[in-house]
């Protein structure tokens, strides 16, 4: 594996983990939410 390929692999793995992390975080926060969705009228959920 070349150095360039290692960099690309790291970037792709980081992007994939961030998507999984966001999804898990979303499921958790959804489970814990009480009377509000995200605390704002304009939200970026």
């Amino acid at each position: 594996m070349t150095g360039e390929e290692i960099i690309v692999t790291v970037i792709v793995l980081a992007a994939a983990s961030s998507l999984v992390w966001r999804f898990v975080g979303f499921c958790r926060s959804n489970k814990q939410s009480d009377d509000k969705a995200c605390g704002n009228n304009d939200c970026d959920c």
Partner: protein
Amino acid sequence: MSALTLATLKMGQTARISSVDGPAHVKRRLMEIGLIPGVEVTAIRQALLGDPIEVQVMHYHLTLRKSQAAFVHVEETSDEPAAATEAQAIASHALDAQIERVALVGNPNCGKTSLFNRLTGLRQKVGNYPGVTIERRSGFFKHGEKDIEILDLPGTYSLNPSSPDERITTQILNAKNKQTAKPDALILVVDACNLARNLYLYTQCIDLGLPIVVALTMFDIAEKEGIQADIKELECLLGVPVVAVNNHSGEGVEALKEKLFSVRIPKDRSWEYPESIQEPCKRLGEIIRENKIDCHGLKADVLAERLLCGAKPISEYANQPLISQLEQEQQELKQQELDINEEIIRARYAWITAVCNHVLPESMRQSARQNLDKFSLKLDSLLVHKFFGLIAFNIIMASVFIAVFIIADPIMGMFEDGIAGFGDALFGGMSDGPLKDLLLNGVIAGVGGVVVFVPQIAILSLFLALLEDSGYLARASFLMDRLLSSVGLHGKSFIPLLTSHACAIPGIMAARSIEDRRDRLATILVAPFMACGARLPVYALLIAVIFHDVGPVMQGLILLSLYVLGVVAAAFTAFLAKKTALKGPSPAFIMEFPSYRMPQWMQVARIVGRNSWLFCKKAGTIILAFSICLWAMLYYPRLDQSEIDRIASDNGMSTEQVETLLPLSEDIAGIEESEASEDDKEQQIKTFLTEQKTTLAAIEKATAIDQEWAGAQSRQSIAGTAGHMLEPIIAPMGYDWKIGVGLIGAFAAREVFVATMGTVYSVGEAEAEDESLHEAMKNDKRSDGKPLWDIPVAISVLVFFAIAMQCISTLAVVKQETGTWRWPVFQLLYMNGLAYILATLVYQIGSRIS
């Protein structure tokens, strides 16, 4: 009982209310907002088809359906003013309390959130229509060393809630202790333009036994209208501090903070109920005291009154003597045919009338009536007219969507050029390889493809914010009520549905202001059909690809038609739901009309900035991550060298020959795009080919081989393989694997479809770096040589996106608001099923016609 009712009044006619009847909850709400016997009311206008109507009562305008207006019996006015009881000054005592949490309470649209922002320095959303705040918000301000928590609560006309947002307020005010958010004191926000109706809430708040300070807002507007309440006198009559505050300039806010620490609990009520109510309350109160029943902070007599009029469930107080006595008292009241709620409201309003008579001299009340917001009245005569109002509504909405294209188009062009130039400048010099490909075709093509739509998002947000802040939205609800009620929705559904055009999540939450459960559920069910900001980039991209030569006005109208499609789908769904699962009687529609005002430009700028920032944030997080993953799925696994060689040799060339000829095609494209005459260009190309010792046919063949390589690479990539597996399902809609991959990505966020197209057409196409996404999509062909993006396919994709439910966050909010997974699961299946069927029909019929 008078045969003349508010519903039968001629427009412009003034009458005096003689009595109010109807179902208990409707009657109570009508009276609480000021429609009480003795008060004068004027019919102003009616909407198209005669319903709902707008009336003026006290010092404000109200809209309600004729079915509710028929409960208000009126009689022709005589010259004699209605009798009013004399107010008594209220004794009070100063409170030596530790104030740590203060709640802002008041009627809807009286300036609570503006004051909250002033007090805390926060920037919560404010708007000029009732029901902007639909949840509890909290902030802090510093007083010496101490942090004081301020709670901003949804507006309410009374502490008898009739909708979920009002329930949030009453739950907090009736909380048992500090752990359940009970405040230590209240700032009662009172609109100085509409003192009488706002003071009704005061008469209920003093029952809570909490210290109160009154913040008199809109004082400047009231002064312009000739209303100058005597603050000292008001303070004396209410027995609590009263501070005039100006939310725009901040005047009076510091004084209000100071007064918070000398707040007073009003000693007792100053109005008297008739004997027939006082006596039963007294008897119940004695039982409560004797049995030491926990009143949760209320006085025994107040709890007795609440139990007697059904405002508190007796089930909370499992005490047999109390239950027996209550049943007996209620039975006796029934025999006397006495409506306790009506008597209570009348007694409170009688006291309020007396207070107002003291603080506002008769001459001032007269001139105030004459000066009543003439500007709003004039504007309403056009914008709320039963015919011209609808025309104006359509013109306003069409202008918004046309402006989105006309204004945004040149800015988007600049964004596109800037992003392309940025990518080239940063990564163009890198040597070819996976990293350069990832950065150019994954990151820049994916994220950049989405970011170019920021101008359109900003312009749409700007117009929606202007409509919100001007006071037009409540009028639009009035205009739309008749149409919405014909499909089973409600005038109050209009604002949640319009809000959903920015994002369905706040729209669904805004449905909390709808009183009736069935109407609220129907609104929540159909809100995701409204074309949200995430759909806009998909619409704009496909309109630009397919309808590129029709001009911005036509493009704007096509965009508007997609928004209309969402509305039609919503209407159809609401109609079905209200005929089946949500079947029930037509509910009440009662809504206050705010005055028109110039939009607050800082507030508008904040909304535009926030929406644009959220869009960019999404592009920089989810969409960036998704674009990188998608790039990898399209880039890997790579084609074998033997396969590359085989494709080239099958076309009569070697791989080396193709790689030598490919850069020449870019040179020729450069000559063709130059500004020279056609003859000169031809001559230049001939000279160039002679110099390079090749032919145009050879270069074209090399380009074709390159495209075949790209196609083979895409087909055998992970995304390609997955997309091809999807093809049997999506083929009836006319989609190929690329669109299939885009549809899957759109379930993460709808804008990902645009990013996917950007990445797919950059990774997959040989000349992608030289052509825009629009061009690449226009030039894409199916295996049989026909264009992929023809009109039936594009419209089919547009219809799919207009109807489909692809937002997981929306589903989660629907679950939260409805309290069950049943509704979001139904939405997911129903909306996606409907989208599939309609998109298939569009493609099948469209392709046969074309």
